[in-house]
């Protein structure tokens, strides 16, 4: 059964001008959002996107943008309240951890 979440809400953006047609986004997307057409990637099923960020991080041409985060109400509420989510331990780090930002992006931003 196909899982479908809300319509017209995700932040995924593909800059077709930049796309080099390597197909990496098709390889990493867990929801089959992309298709390769005439040597370029195209968003075929936008509403299936869960904003995991795999495509944008792996795009060597920097053609993809997505406001990645985790679709978890507990995590979103906790970070709004300034608390750490409970699904991973204090010494650990996971996607629902407060702030939700990729540690390497965070460091790059601070540098």
């Amino acid at each position, binding site marked *: *059964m196909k*899982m*479908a*979440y*809300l*319509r017209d*809400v*995700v*932040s995924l953006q593909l800059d077709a001008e930049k796309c080099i047609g390597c197909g*990496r986004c*098709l*390889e*990493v*997307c*867990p*929801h*089959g959002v992309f298709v390769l057409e005439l040597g370029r990637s195209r968003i075929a099923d936008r509403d*299936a*996107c*869960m*904003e*995991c*960020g*795999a*495509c944008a*991080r*792996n795009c*060597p041409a920097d053609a993809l943008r997505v*406001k*990645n*985060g*985790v*679709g*978890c*109400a*507990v*995590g*979103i*509420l906790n970070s709004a309240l300034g608390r750490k989510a*409970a*699904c*991973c*331990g204090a*010494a*650990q*780090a*996971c*996607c*629902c*951890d407060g702030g*939700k930002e*990729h*540690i*390497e*992006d*965070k460091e790059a931003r601070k540098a």
Partner: protein
Amino acid sequence: MRQQQDTVPVRPETKARHWVVGYIEAPTGSVPRVATRWTWRERMGAAAVRWHVGRMRYTVEPGLYAVGQPDRDSPLMATANYKLSFDHLRRALHGLAAWIMVVDTRGINVWCAAGKGTFGTREVVRRLAAVEARRLVGHATLILPQLAAPGVAAHNVQQQSGFKVVYGPVRAADLPAFLRAGLHASGAMRKVTFTLRERLAVVPVELVQRVVPAVLVMLAFFLGAGVGPHGYRLAVAQWPGIAAAVGVNFLAGMALTPALLPWLPGRAFALKGAEIGAATGSVLWAVGRYGVAEGVGVALLSVAACSFLGLMFTGCTPYTSASGVRRELRWALPLQIAGAGAGLVVWSLARWR
């Protein structure tokens, strides 16, 4: 036994590793060889972490491991150091020869660690160097689990380590087919599913983590039930009914909603939960033989509670986007609070009949 002691070098280990069945002499040194069959210990461990028992410290030491009798041409694949991830990987490789590079994700599974970046480019590059992967294999190809992709930039790994990254299938069980096909995953292998079995597998951890709040809610209603025209008196006679109503809502909102997820009308989780709440409230009203006011109160409270629990389940699914959940929270949370407030008022007023 004697012979085995001779061939198995004694080495310092921080954890008992019954799944190490020997050691292989690789160009880079001695590498532990791992079993590819699960014993009762793996099964027990997997069942325990599903109930949140020992889940935060169910780990494997990061480093290099061997499956079968691998050589320079054998595939090199990475996984997280959450033992459940590692156990699934080695079981999937039964009968094959491969190198497993366990990266340090602090005991978190592949996908969640990738989301935070602990399963990231830097850790992969660092671990490739630490295990001397260049001396180990001749092919300079690293197979990463597909779900590591939110954390790892494949082109940067190649630039920094010389290793070409190929993303394997989502599920470890598809690895033999992926390897047979010359490192090619079919479309189905690339997609995340959320079957009934998968939905139910994530329920126990949630139940365990919400027991305390559920008990607190129950206690609040125990105390609240004592208010009436007579002043205050502990309404002990009502406690079993209240406990049952809270317990049923807790189970319905946290187990029934996930189980029936694809069949519940609508896309929003708050709506799906509310539908379960309406059903739960109706059943409670019928079984509890409440008066109209109390029935309406209980129904409103059930709808609000199950709707909220439905929304909370978004974090357990593999397909909800953060933007979508934020949109849902904006309209659903005020409604849930209003519904719960109205329910409480009606339920309390019913006590003044």
